[in-house]
């Protein structure tokens, strides 16, 4: 079933194709049916390549070399992990731009098992230069990120998920990719990434902590993190990421390299869970439910 973010992606992309004549949309069967109408309208710019993910990225690179602005879309494991060398060479090394839009996230397809889950996508892209990585927590954020990416020419990854927050925290207080302050406190700072923000707010209820919201993690907003930590004696940072735990710990360490700090990276565990079930059950298994997060955060801060 298509989630709300993916539906919005289809809707907005279809609209953008009408106004951006260099924009192209590439699929490898997954979601292709959702673009059937757009394909009829723009047969040269809406292309379904069949189940060929290496070609998906290669074609995106080749189209960009011809002056097009390609969007390539599939589920995260088939978009990022399977054709990773194509991302490195056909996009980065050719010095061209592209927009990669994934669905499925870390465990949206919980019942699909390991093959359909991609907790490592952001960590993988973090090994390459130049990528803007968006982890929208709401369909409105995904839409804004997509519109901006379509108008630009850089390398942009938009990680859609069926998990979402009630409100679009990332659109509060004007534009920009910077972190938003959701709550202020003095005992520590929790950075909530994308769809985990509402869970983090619930988990930190009554705790004296600052909660930052990150809808974009690359580039990492070191300036805002440093600013909220400026008046805290000891910099204590908890990262809560909806993908591989610790993915952005190096970014926090770099941001705070000139001052003593402690950092805890929470996220999807490194081990395979080898269970099916629901996304909620997987969140709990990885300690990403509100109770699990609260325990981890309290233990780290050493406060009750």
């Amino acid at each position: 079933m298509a989630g709300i973010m993916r539906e919005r992606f289809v809707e907005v992309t279809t609209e953008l194709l009408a106004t951006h004549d260099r924009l192209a949309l590439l699929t490898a069967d997954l979601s292709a049916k959702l673009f059937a109408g757009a394909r009829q309208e723009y047969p040269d710019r809406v292309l379904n390549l069949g189940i060929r993910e290496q070609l998906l990225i290669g074609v995106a690179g080749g189209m960009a070399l011809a002056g097009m602005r390609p969007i390539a879309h599939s589920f995260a494991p088939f978009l990022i992990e399977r054709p990773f060398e194509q991302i490195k060479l056909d996009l980065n090394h050719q010095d061209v731009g592209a927009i990669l839009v994934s669905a499925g996230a870390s465990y949206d397809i919980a019942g699909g098992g390991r093959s359909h889950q991609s907790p490592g996508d952001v960590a993988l892209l973090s090994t390459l230069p130049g990528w803007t990585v968006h982890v929208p927590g709401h369909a409105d954020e995904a839409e804004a990120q997509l519109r901006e990416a379509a108008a630009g020419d850089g390398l942009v990854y938009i990680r859609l998920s069926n998990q979402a927050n009630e409100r679009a925290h990332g659109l509060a207080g004007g534009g920009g990719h910077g972190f938003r302050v959701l709550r202020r406190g003095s005992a520590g700072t929790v950075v909530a990434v994308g769809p985990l923000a509402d869970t983090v707010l619930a988990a930190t209820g009554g705790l004296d902590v600052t909660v930052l919201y990150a809808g974009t993690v690359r580039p990492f907003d070191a300036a805002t993190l440093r600013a909220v930590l400026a008046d805290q004696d000891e910099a204590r940072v908890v990262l809560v990421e909806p993908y591989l735990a610790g993915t952005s710990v190096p970014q926090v360490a770099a941001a705070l390299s000139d001052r003593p700090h402690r950092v805890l990276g929470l996220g999807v565990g490194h081990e395979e869970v080898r269970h099916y079930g629901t996304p909620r059950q997987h969140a709990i298994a990885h300690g990403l439910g509100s109770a699990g997060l609260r325990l981890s955060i309290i233990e780290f801060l050493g406060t009750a």
Partner: protein
Amino acid sequence: MTEPRFEDLHGLMAAMTGDEKHTTAATSTLDVLWVLYDRVLRVDPSMAEDRDRFYLSKGHGPMAYYAVLAAKGFIDPAEFERFGAYPSPLGHHPDRVLVPGVEISSGSLGHGLPLAVGTALGLRARGLTRSRIWVLLGDGELDEGSNHEAIAYAARAGLDRLNVVVIDNDSASHGWPGGLEQRFAVEGWSTARVDAGDHDGLEKAFAAHTPGRPALVVAEVEERSTSH
């Protein structure tokens, strides 16, 4: 200054010294590169948007490519003395960001053809239908599965501006029973096989055009590659 001839290319290549080990791989492409740049491609250093494009997928042994680009005015042969050196734009695999006239950065096998399929689609979407594209691969390179994703799709998409040249020096470890062109023919490509040393034959094969079909030219080289 007289226009460089084919006979001058070996002299240009000899200027690139060092521990380059892909000598056979380099010379196997020389005839095809020369015929393309001397007689077929509509491209010059101005790199006009509607130019023909040449993608060297088999990026190892690029000395012949650099020599031809120098002969045609894209790069300065004085650079050859620094071939492979740290500050040189000319490495053992070409980088499009560093070398004028180089359309793609290559080295890892199996990337040129998928990129060319994308470029053919992109040019078609932009209405730049005059541009034709040539991609040069080695027969061993066809082992890479990414090529087969591209071979199948290119024909289904009717990319008749797309042309593949495979240098066949029988270097695929497990061979291609029935000839490598069968892999293309079954997908609907037009195919031809030419002796790589026959410049007129190559030119004729490159000029052929079948509406609605991408084209393959197999350029046969006798000496087996010992590049690895």
